[in-house]
């Protein structure tokens, strides 16, 4: 297993020993005669409209000078009631809503949701191999796209604007790929229950290969601008340290958990799709500071490129949907020419896929962490209750514990390194 130890350019063990065990303690207000010298504290509203809160996160900071003594995140400004909306529509109709969760990686959300519903129907093991490979390609493209943005925004927050523009150049290429794949650049809605909307367009595999060769160059460029940049290292190293225990206690997932040295990746721990047949490493941090989380994301993108290369090489032929008209939408040309498929299509579209009663939970390794769908069904075409476990929401819960003791300027480094998306957090 490759770890971030390989990426560290200076003595990781020594660094681990030298790093403080936990985040610095907030300054304790001295009592008695010193209280007058303590001065007043200032309450600063950071957000919901602030350049570094990436959307509509609001953090109420209590500042002593520039030192944070208390931090209280306030979420919900982007709440749309997605979970309640899900109860009033068929399973397929909810797919477009998943685009708007982590809107930096809509393809990965589509895949996670489709897999959850398929698990409910008990058809998740019947997916044709080509469909599974295409879904893995979708997930990993989304991961590269989301991490590129996370990386660029992180760099921008600490002041390095150019990295942001450089990563956006590559994201543009991903959007072009997604556009030719799904017809939309942003709101993809690509998966269907039991398959994907359409097969890869002709020539797409070659375009994707070309992109992979180009994006690796971009990783190197971004890394040259940041990884050994003394100012960037000073702004991120030994800051916002999340210990292993804290990371697990607060339920962190994804790169934030792995940055703290916990080797847990849903793709390895509970393999879904064809992840168990693919070769890739899970990078793990050593200290759990902002710098480690940055390194983990950097390496995850390279591993995603590696996975994509394998998928494109091994891509099998065959159908992209389960040939079962009772639960999976039949191909359109069949609907227009054959009676049975027309009936299936009519029933599925008007009443939804008739799910068995019961409840399931499915979690997928999304760019931000474990995106989970809990579905409670009482039978019929709509879920009785659908709960989304949004990784950004859970990852933000550590802020009141993490921020105190740091300086106001470190807030942006820490927020940037936690890499959250409010669309998913507030859902």
């Amino acid at each position: 297993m490759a770890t971030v130890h390989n990426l560290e350019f200076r003595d990781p063990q020594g660094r681990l020993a030298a790093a403080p065990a936990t985040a610095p303690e907030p300054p304790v207000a001295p009592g008695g005669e010193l209280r007058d010298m303590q001065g007043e504290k200032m309450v600063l509203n950071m957000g919901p409209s602030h350049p570094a809160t990436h959307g509509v996160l609001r953090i109420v900071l209590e500042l002593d000078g520039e030192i944070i003594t208390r931090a209280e995140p306030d979420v919900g400004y982007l709440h749309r009631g997605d979970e309640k909306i899900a109860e009033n529509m068929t399973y397929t109709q909810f797919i477009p809503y998943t685009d708007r969760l982590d809107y930096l990686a809509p393809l990965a959300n589509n895949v996670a949701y489709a897999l959850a519903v398929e698990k409910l129907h008990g058809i998740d093991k019947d997916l044709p191999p080509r469909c599974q490979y295409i879904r893995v390609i979708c997930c990993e493209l989304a991961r590269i796209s989301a991490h590129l943005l996370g990386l660029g925004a992180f760099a921008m927050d600490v002041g390095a604007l150019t990295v942001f523009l450089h990563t956006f150049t590559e994201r543009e290429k991903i959007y072009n790929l997604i556009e030719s794949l799904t017809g939309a650049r942003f709101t993809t809605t690509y998966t269907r229950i039991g398959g994907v909307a359409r097969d890869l367009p002709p020539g797409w595999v070659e375009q994707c290969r070309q992109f992979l060769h180009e994006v690796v160059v971009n990783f190197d460029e971004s890394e040259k601008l940041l990884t050994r940049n003394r100012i960037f290292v000073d702004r991120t190293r030994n800051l916002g340290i999340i210990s292993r225990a804290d990371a697990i206690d607060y339920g962190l997932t994804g790169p934030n958990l792995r940055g703290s040295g916990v080797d847990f990746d849903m793709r390895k721990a509970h393999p879904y799709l064809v992840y168990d047949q693919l070769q890739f490493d899970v990078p793990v941090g050593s200290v759990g500071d902002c710098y480690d989380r940055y390194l983990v994301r950097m390496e995850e993108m390279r591993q995603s490129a590696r996975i994509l290369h394998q998928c494109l090489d091994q891509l099998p032929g065959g159908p992209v949907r389960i040939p079962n008209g009772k639960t999976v939408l039949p191909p359109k040309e069949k609907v227009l020419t054959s009676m049975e498929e027309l009936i299936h299509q009519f029933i599925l579209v008007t009443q939804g896929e008739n799910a068995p009663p019961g409840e399931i939970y499915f979690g997928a390794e999304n760019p931000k962490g474990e995106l989970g769908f809990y579905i409670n069904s009482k039978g019929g075409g709509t879920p009785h209750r659908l709960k989304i476990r949004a990784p950004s929401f859970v990852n933000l819960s550590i802020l009141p514990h993490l921020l105190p003791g740091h300086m106001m300027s470190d807030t942006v480094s820490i927020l940037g390194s936690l890499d959250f998306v409010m669309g998913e957090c507030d859902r």
Partner: protein
Amino acid sequence: MHLPPLISLAAWLPDLGHDGNFALLSLIKIVGVVAVLLTMVAYAVLVERKVSAFIQDRVGPNRVALPLIGNIPVLGPFLTRLGIWQPIADGVKSFLKEDFTPNHVRKIYFWLAPAVTMIPAFLTVAVIPFGSNLNGEKMVLADLDVGILYTFGIVSLGVYGIVLAGYAANSKYPFLGGIRSSAQMISYEIAMGLSVIPVFMLVGNLNLSSVISYQADGNWIVFRQPIAFLVFLVAAFAETNRLPFDMPESETELVGGYNTEYSSMKFALFFMGEYANMITSSAMMVTLFWGGWTLPFGGFSEPATTLAGGLAHIGIFLGKVIVFMVFFIWVRWMLPRFRYDQLMDLGWRRFLPLTLANLFVTAVIMWLQAH
């Protein structure tokens, strides 16, 4: 030797006497310098946008053009595409926008702050020799014998504008920006002041013109005092509030910092102040360390005796300044931002001992050479 001037102003003007001539020529020089400075400020913004676009693989401003310019044969398309009209549009926009004064600000200081930022940047130019001779006239507005003391005295005032803006805005983000600015100033100014002392020890004079004549024939001080130059360079970045030291402004942390509450022309004054500061800092570096208007070859080391030579000296000086301006801009788009305690650490714990050691070593070497 002094050749008779080619165009003598006094020849066709009524005799104004010595004082009158001095006043008239100074006025002409001041108008010329301010015009050049303002144009450079305006176009520095354009260069900043173009260079950042080049670094970030973008196109940059290329849309603004005056009506009918595109119809000029051959040249037209270039004139419309290069964005050279952008500064005019920016300026007009700043004037026409609503000049909004929020209710909660302290009005007098709020109005005062942009001026206090802008004026010192322009005043500093007064002592900088931007050329040798033109028509027998020394190309410096005020040939002060205490040039550098004047410069440091005036430059320090610029920070008050920012502190004042942070105080006057009476809101939290500008307040933090103002505090950072004061903390920043005390940490770099001392190192900056100490870094130039060895220069004047070498020259033996505080007059900036004699600093330049000392550097004739390629004897540029940067080769003798590289440490002093590096410290001065970093301090110049801090002084101009540019990345990596733009903590008082830091858009992503303080949402604009001290100028959060400003709009319209008042904001534009802060903006122009920043660029004017860049120009004066570059001019200071060129004068103190890079030989001013001299070049070691082509006979450009001695004060000019002809009109063409004088103009060439001004061109050399401006060229050197522009190199530093591009360096300022390049650095801004390549580096992240320091935290302000890190700048204080840098100023107090690294640069202060370094400049003191540099001062001491220079003194020892000079003493050894003298004996």
